[in-house]
């Protein structure tokens, strides 16, 4: 087991542990902070996959923008401490657990039959030009999905503006 595997296992354990704490903490701000730890762990996994660009984008978008909005929204709510004391489990939690277990077994089984499952990490041809290659492929090979995603984002933006527009004027 190389250093990469050890680092991966540590990062994966951190992500899973933090994810469990997100759903079990009673304090909403603590839950949001554990979510940030989980997102950081995912960024570390990206670095291990030699995708430094994705790691940085993960930090900029998820931690720098989305999670801070979570904290913002939580700070504006009452009852952050969660002193209601009731059970945090839904009565049919075992159905959800069973389904997720089945899903995980299915994914692992499909992946293990895939021919690329046991291959080593291939060396990347042009390490310095990774980002410009990504940019070029976004506007050539993957032009249609890229444009579709931007149309979707614009539609969401317009929707947000419409929802928050004051109609009384």
């Amino acid at each position, binding site marked *: 087991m190389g250093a990469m595997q050890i680092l991966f296992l540590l990062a994966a354990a951190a992500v899973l542990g933090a994810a469990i704490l997100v759903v079990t903490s009673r*304090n909403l*701000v*603590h839950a949001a*902070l554990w979510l*940030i730890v989980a997102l950081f762990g995912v960024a570390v996994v990206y670095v291990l996959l030699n995708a*430094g*660009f994705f790691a*940085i*984008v993960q*930090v*900029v978008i998820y*931690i*720098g*923008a989305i999670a*801070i909005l979570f*904290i*913002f929204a939580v*700070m*504006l709510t009452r009852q952050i401490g969660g002193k209601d004391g009731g059970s945090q489990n839904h009565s049919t939690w075992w159905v959800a657990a069973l389904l997720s277990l089945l899903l995980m077994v299915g994914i692992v089984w499909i992946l293990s039959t895939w021919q690329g499952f046991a291959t080593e990490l291939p060396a990347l041809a042009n*390490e*310095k030009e*990774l*980002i*410009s290659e990504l940019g070029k492929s976004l506007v050539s090979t993957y032009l249609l999905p890229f444009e579709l995603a931007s149309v979707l984002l614009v539609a969401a933006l317009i929707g947000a503006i419409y929802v928050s527009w004051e109609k009384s004027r």
Partner: protein
Amino acid sequence: MQLGLFLQWIIKSGILLAIMTGGFAYVTLYERKVLARIQVRIGPNRAGPLGILQPIADGIKLIFKEELIPARADKFIFILAPIITVFPALVITAVVPWGETMTLFGQQVPLGIAPDLNVGALYVMAIASISVYGITLAGWSSNNKYATLGGLRASAQMISYELALGLSFVPSIMLAKSMSLMDHVQMQAQMGMLKWWLYQPLGPAIFLIASIAEVNRAPFDMPEAEQELTAGYHTEYSGMKFALFFMAEYIKMIAVSMIAATLFFGGYLGPFVDRLPWLGPIYLFGKVIILLFGMIWLRATLPRIRYDRLMSFGWKILLPASLLNVFITAVLVVIFG
């Protein structure tokens, strides 16, 4: 070889941390001296010759102050917040190049910790976006209305100005055709500073305004507006924890000056730097001193902007201006190559 490289990184990181923390102490003195001169006073001149021991006296005083944690504060986050605030300020300049690669003790030593990182500009953005957390959490965990409002204002302000800050990087990235800050400086050497500015006419102004808002300095120091919020997010902090917030603010001043110098004012470039590479760090240092003087001058001159004006300036003027700036650069790059 591996060990040598490792040692080299540790030594360079140590030097950077020492410069940033030592720089923090002396930027406080620099600011007090310059402010005093602008207001026709003398400034601190009792501790040591010309007052140069004043930061040490202040530090010792703060260490011996009592640490208070308010009742019903979220203790863990209350202690964590100052640490989260200082950490991004210390690591953000890791991608700034200090000079050309030098040969020291028979080894090729690039000046800077990771000057050629291929996501350098994005790294700066990522770290800048994390630095909101410390202030927001400090405000919330204090269990104090003024502090919470200060924290909320700080996060709203920093999120708004981050957009303009990020967009002011884009023209440089387009011109250098790279995100590595080393390539930015080398492109400036190749193009000449005048052409670099003509290609992005609004870039330096937008970066400087947005970065002052980003480090919460006057005239954008809304999160700690004394008249309205007593002291903003750090109202409940005392002793060394307060000192850490203070430290983060001044280290961030140094950091944004270094980044501004690298992106828009030639970084380590200067006369004779191609023949004598050790002049690079000295030029960078000089440029940082000049930019810091500008920041202090602004604080001494301008009154604080009202909060709604601040937000509408950020969204209605600065953001369209930075989009226009990107557009101008794109058109010029397409026409003139």
